[in-house]
């Protein structure tokens, strides 16, 4: 089993696909998953997820097993094996 992570725009380009599988780890959280993505794909992925001036994750929305929710209040949310998470790209303006 694994965790399915759906990616968009720049994150999709960096990972080479719109969906990647990550190995589940015990006590894994959303924040842990984001850090694993950064570790796996490097600074380019970091720039897609983190405000490089503050060092904090940028506010965004995730879809966690079909339910949309704000990212930042859910960073500590536990992830189970088999979960599916979509990391919605931040876009203001328009």
């Amino acid at each position, binding site marked *: 089993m694994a965790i399915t992570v759906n990616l968009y725009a720049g994150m999709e380009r960096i990972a080479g696909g719109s969906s990647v599988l990550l190995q589940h780890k015990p006590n894994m959280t959303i924040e842990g998953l984001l850090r694993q993505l950064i570790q796996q794909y490097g600074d380019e992925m970091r720039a897609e997820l983190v405000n490089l001036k503050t060092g904090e994750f940028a*506010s965004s929305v995730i879809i966690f097993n079909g339910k949309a929710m*704000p990212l930042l209040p859910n960073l500590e949310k536990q992830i189970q094996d088999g979960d599916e998470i979509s990391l919605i790209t931040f876009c203001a303006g328009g």
Partner: protein
Amino acid sequence: MKYQGYAGKILRVDLSNNKVTMENVDETLVRQYLGGNGFGIKYLYEEVPAGLNPLDPTNRLIIMSGPGEGTMLPGAGRAVVITKSPLTNHFIDSYFGGHFGAELKYAGYDGIIIQGKADKPVYLLIDDDKVTIEDASDLWGLNTFQTQFKLREKLGEDISTLAIGPAGERMVPLACIISGVSAAGRGGTGAVMGSKNLKAIAARGTQDVAVADIEGFKQYVKSVVERIKAHPGTGKNLPAYGTTASIKTNHDLGILGTRNWQQEQFEGAIAINGTTIKEKGYGIGSITCVACPIACSQLTLVNQGIYKGALTIGPEYETLFALGSTCGNANVESIVRGDQMCDEYGLDTISVGAVIAFAMECYENGIIGKEETGGIELNFGNHEAIISLIEKIACQEGMGKILGHGAKRAAEYFGRGAERFAIHVKGLEVPAHSSRGLPGMAIGYATSNRGGSHQDGRATGERTGQVDRDVIEGKGRYAANVQRMTALCDSIITCRMTENIYGLIGITDDHVQMVRLITGMDLNKEELVDIADRIYTLERVFNIREGDESRKTDTLPARFMEEPIPGGPSAGKVITPEILNKLLDEYYEERGWDKNTGYPTAQTLKRLGLEQVIKDIYPLR
């Protein structure tokens, strides 16, 4: 003028009398209205009487910059067109990017007020202090880009221009104004310009724009640029994709208007997403407005198929929705072509797409048939029909004559229950942001002074997780605070692309700082809120004075209140009349408006220094 950031003069152009005069900008006007939309509504309110036909020569076409234009402030590469809309018969302000706003300031003017009607096609030439009304017989009939190219050939490459196309010349209520490649898209500004026989404006200037604290301002701009570059949204996503990659994300969130909002997920989302445009090799570069480090505008060229050669700036997210998902159209090449046609003819892509989607739903439900469509099979997804109808709307041929008046009036014309499919607020077609899935956006639409616009209320806070979209309570107050931010930013004038940097859910210390550094006015947040409220309230009173704006009209299309989103992560979401009423109560309370009528109270009008308009909406007092 003791305040900086202003040229200090406004041009008044009387086309009926072939006369140009200059007026000083009053310091009281600056302190009370700041610039942009504020200046615009003050002049419009005083000079356009209630009940006036928007295409009457007496209507004003007002073009304004703000104190930010012509400075280095990131996002201040804009200007605004303000008028009484021929589409809604209400106030409209529509903003455009590029260089014109800055160039106008460099020429020595904060804005232009155009009145009357020329007896033949003309253009306005502003060359520093030399301002003339020129013959435009050779430009009439050309599209927006041909017109601007011809002016550059004639006047020099350093000229900045705006123009109408054939749609504006024909006074189509969906006509827009194009400046460079950017559109003042909404509300029929192009038709008002066409009604005045004004084909174009060209401006060039050589003067400086002074700011109050140049060293402080330079430091501030440097820090803003750093913050823009550091944020994933403005540093990565917008420069790479503009707004185009939001199609797929909003589809996955279940908030992408599809088939005239019958659904909010589109099976063709990937096919029309910005990433696909790039993968197909259609992206050929990006361009930027003056003084902007983001460069969000994507240049797109189709290199294959029946639409090979289609070239446009964009299509933006709004247009991918309007000519794409809401028309059930997954052919991205046709969207590029349709976007190009709308820009060339000078048409608002949002309203054009929305009115075509409306007609498609009418057709599929038997309200109209081939007799009305001129033989076109107007089913959702028929991209050739979309292209054909854009031309018919621009040229006012066949059904285009009806659709060119917008969904509300077209529905009244068709009758037979078509009103249910007309997705508009106060006559302006609703753009690409979900009401049902984003309650803060819903109340923002219902109370927008422009009608169905996403530029008064905003979707961004809920769409980016800064505000929880599942929470209803408090969204009335939230919408008022977002509108305060947008009203203030539209007076300074800054671009929405920088909203996440300067503050997107209310007025912030950044707004305080930029106003102080540029103008020298040391105003705190509460004082800036008062300016924003004064502007927004006067726009509201303008609409009330027209006789039909009230709590009753602060509403949403029936579909958003009666039909829950049918599927996806937003399934079941709906803004029932009960929810809307609750949010309206909250909203009016926050604004100091009467909960029964939706009118600003006399007390609120007095507090904002608007005593003089009380008699206009409370005539019996």
